[in-house]
């Protein structure tokens, strides 16, 4: 691991200044991705700007229509939050299913989105719920945020401050985990917000994507049966030792059906 400077600013503005003062700075959130990358020498930043001291990036607030989660909120906190459990239980469930307790106690929403791992869970929720990613410079709608494998619309030095999730009428996430890492081999987030259905798939492709055919079918009839006969093409899916593209395509269908069932069951229970 290369030597680097370490700073721990107290405000978003200070963080931006600290970043600009570095020739090759990097924000540090939970460090669950960044630290291993540094250890392997795959990144050699000149300085780390630790976001842990910035009060404004923490916390969860809910209104009737919007749930706002600070970028530095850990997965464990989202999972255990009564506000999240009430407003969007599927989001709490998703956070509670990330990795393992150690990862959930350190990893953050902002870090997960900025990293945009193609197998990460949160991107599916952000995209399906049509959330807004708020940064220190602007508001980025979900549809424009995830631009490719480990790529986002964030500019150099742009800092995610919060994410605003619209409260869904129905929502659920179903994930088939990688047996080793527990990242998604295929994860499907299904949501109906203001009457419109969105289906986001993670883990199976080179980045999170929406399943248009499924959305159209569920728009007409929000039942798992409505998905029957919709084949997901394996052409654009990834293959590795854990799952072939064909198996991933199949799992997307199964997970989508289970998510719809769970979304309907959630409502029934409430």
């Amino acid at each position, binding site marked *: 691991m290369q030597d680097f400077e370490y700073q721990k600013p107290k405000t978003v503005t200070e963080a931006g200044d600290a970043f600009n003062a570095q020739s090759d700075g990097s924000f540090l959130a939970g460090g669950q991705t960044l630290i291993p990358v540094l250890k392997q020498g795959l990144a050699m930043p000149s300085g780390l700007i630790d976001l842990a001291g910035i009060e404004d990036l923490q916390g969860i607030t809910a209104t009737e229509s919007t749930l706002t989660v600070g970028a530095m909120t850990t997965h464990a906190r989202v999972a255990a939050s009564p506000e999240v459990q009430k407003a969007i239980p599927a989001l709490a469930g998703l956070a509670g299913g990330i990795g393992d307790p150690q990862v959930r106690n350190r990893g953050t929403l902002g870090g997960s989105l900025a990293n945009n791992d193609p197998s990460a869970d949160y991107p599916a929720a952000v995209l399906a719920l049509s959330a807004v990613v708020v940064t220190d410079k602007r508001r980025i709608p979900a549809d424009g945020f995830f631009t490719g494998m480990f790529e986002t619309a964030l500019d150099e030095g742009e800092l995610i401050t919060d994410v605003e999730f619209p409260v869904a009428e129905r929502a659920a996430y179903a994930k088939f985990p*990688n047996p*080793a890492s527990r990242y998604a081999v295929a994860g499907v987030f299904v949501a109906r917000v203001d009457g419109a259905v969105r289906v986001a798939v993670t883990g199976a492709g080179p980045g999170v994507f929406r399943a248009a055919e499924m959305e159209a079918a569920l728009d007409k009839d929000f039942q798992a049966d409505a998905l029957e006969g919709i084949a997901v093409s394996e052409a654009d899916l990834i293959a590795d*030792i854990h799952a072939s593209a064909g198996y991933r395509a199949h799992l997307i269908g199964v997970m989508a059906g289970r998510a719809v069932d769970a979304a309907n069951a959630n409502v029934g229970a409430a």
Partner: protein
Amino acid sequence: MTDVTIGQPVRRSEDERFLTGRGRYIDDINLEGQARAVVLRSVYAHARIKNIDASGALAMEGVLLVVTGEDWIAEGFGPMPTKTAIRKNRDGSELSEPPRHCLAIGRVRYVGEPVALVVAETDPIARDALDLIDVDYESLDAVTDAVEALAPDAPQLWDDIPGNLCIDFELGDREGVEKAFAEADHVITLDLENNRVTAVPIEPRGCVGSYDPETDTYLLYNSTQNVHAIRDTLAENVFGIDKEKIRHIAPDVGGGFGVKNSAYPEPPLVLYAAKKLGRPVKWINNRSESFLSDTHGRGQTSRVQLAIDNDGTFRALRTETVAGIGAYCWTIGPFTPTGGSARTQGGPYDFPVMYYRSRAVFINTGPMDPYRGAGRPEATFQTERIIEYAARQLGLDPIEIRRKNLMRPEKLPHKTSMGLNIDCGDFPKVFERTLKLADPGSFAERAEQIKTAGRRFGFAIAPYLECTGGGPKEFAGVAFGADGTVSLSVGSQSTGMGHETSMAQLLAARLGIPFERVEYHQADTDKTPIGGGHGGSRGMELGGNAVAQAAGEVIEKASGLAAHLLQSKAADLTFEGGSFKDSGSGASVSMVEVIEASFDSERLPDDLEPGCLDTGSTFERGEISIPNGCHAAAVEVDPKTGAILLLGYWVVDDFGTIINPLLADGQVMGGVAQGIGQVLTENIVFDDSGQLITGSLMDYGLPRADGVPDMVIEYYEGAPTKKNPLGVKGAGEAGCVGSLPAVVNAVLDALKEFGVVHIDIPLTSEKVWRAVQDQGAHDPKGLIEGAL
């Protein structure tokens, strides 16, 4: 102060230390002025080394030394030989053993093979310096699959070893089997893969070495399972020095499972560097390096054939195995797939005749050496899978045909066609007890609910046969202190199993002294003259018997002093409940008092000195013991995704006399968890060029606590073995032996309505899902035909 007995579930006294971060592991050991070593490892699976230019590294500030293969050979150091007990090909000729040096000489043969050692002031400097060593490789074709390596046109690893063949081994009655095959109603054939896995002990390997020029001696702290044998290899084979010149100590070791049994190249490199630099040197492997350089296990491809009659009677068993052992013969590398896998073929069943053939093959991968069970899990898997498969093919009840063919206790003692002498046990009783505990009939309702939810329920039972003992001799030393402490030094070794508790418990119980007084020592070549370390489930069988024997000697010595104290004759004394009693006068004196008296010149007779009760005792076993038992597993399988969930697990083990059931339970649970890991999620995968794909825990799927079910574990203690005085049979590996087939057969039971009768392990969700899609279509002769 507590009295303990044999058979009592005494809680582990070492756990407080371990659980509060006070264990002392290899990385906790730092010697004054130490430098740090890092190994440069090959990035090619097979390549010629044309040149190594270390000048860039040596020019870096803080770099102290670079050692290459050429330097090593120039020093005249020798290779590390294999110590396999099986050395002969079936035609009587000797196995082929290429020289295994500590650094690659002129050619690399696997990714991860040590090419150079770099020593620097700090670990980061040494790691950075790795990039500055310029190795000019000429890439060669590689072969990582053992069956392919036997093909005539396969890349050859060794110029003087034709066909990549290390050893071609056979055991049993080939002609008898052929005759039985011709006569039986059916011969059922199935090719099986036993996937390659690695143990992943939580503590990676590492060592710290120093050299004292005044005495010309070395000190080596090492995270190992076997200080004596490895010291001998380093001294006698590598350095060509007297073995007393090396003191070898293992501090607390965070897991071994066989992986730390091997003589690895890094410790001798570290000792050499320490002498050369005149300062201590420390080396710690990280997790990525461990995946590449730790020994792996299993990795066998076999054809198994069962001759069976219409009524389910077993007539004969034949197994032919091909196993890649890596590019060299490691410590016992050629043994595991040959003798190690042969002995328990056929399990506890009454097979009139058996035949086993196996070839160990050189391939361009990291080394293979023992992994928990070292051949017996493979043998049991082969036996139990072919039985299950035959039952499905012939429409027989898999439970019934097992019951029908189990060896009856009246048949014992019995020597099997594999030469195993089964002295005692009651296999039917253990089998029926396991069935009773599991009670598969009671699952009917649950199975229905599971099916309604779209999943399927499965159950299977798997009896197993073990053979344990490992190295045949063990030492125990007992030394008393004036302060009342009793120092117990044993040459067997705990790498987490709890000998600090069980050995102390055994000594305290035998002597009738408080448990807390016993201070346990192990794994130090200066403390015990010999020692067999850890391997082959030998802790209690060898170490325990040595302790019991030493306790007997202490009692013998103490009775003389007790007689003096009681003014009676030693012959008139009985020792019971921790006290010597004169049967005539009724007077008695406790062992604790006798020990106290041994340090009191007023009470000691003239011819005795303080310390007169101390003893050192070497126990030598006869034949290896034959543990046995039975596992049962219940699972649910989701045919839509292929996901598997374990619902229940039951075990009845015959480990002979149980010294501490709590510790035995721990052994069984850990072994079962490793078995579950192997058959469901663990898998070592290489790509075609020999690169390791599963080189991190993000891809290598270790079992997790939430995937391992609660277990019901019982012991059958009705058949203590007479092969050793304690009547114990090894407990350390059995959990791994029974769990492979129990879990796999339960999954296949769940899939029977889809016609699925075979899936090779690991049973990944995709393989399970595809088997359901394919409605059981499979090729029973699809793996090894070309190599037969």
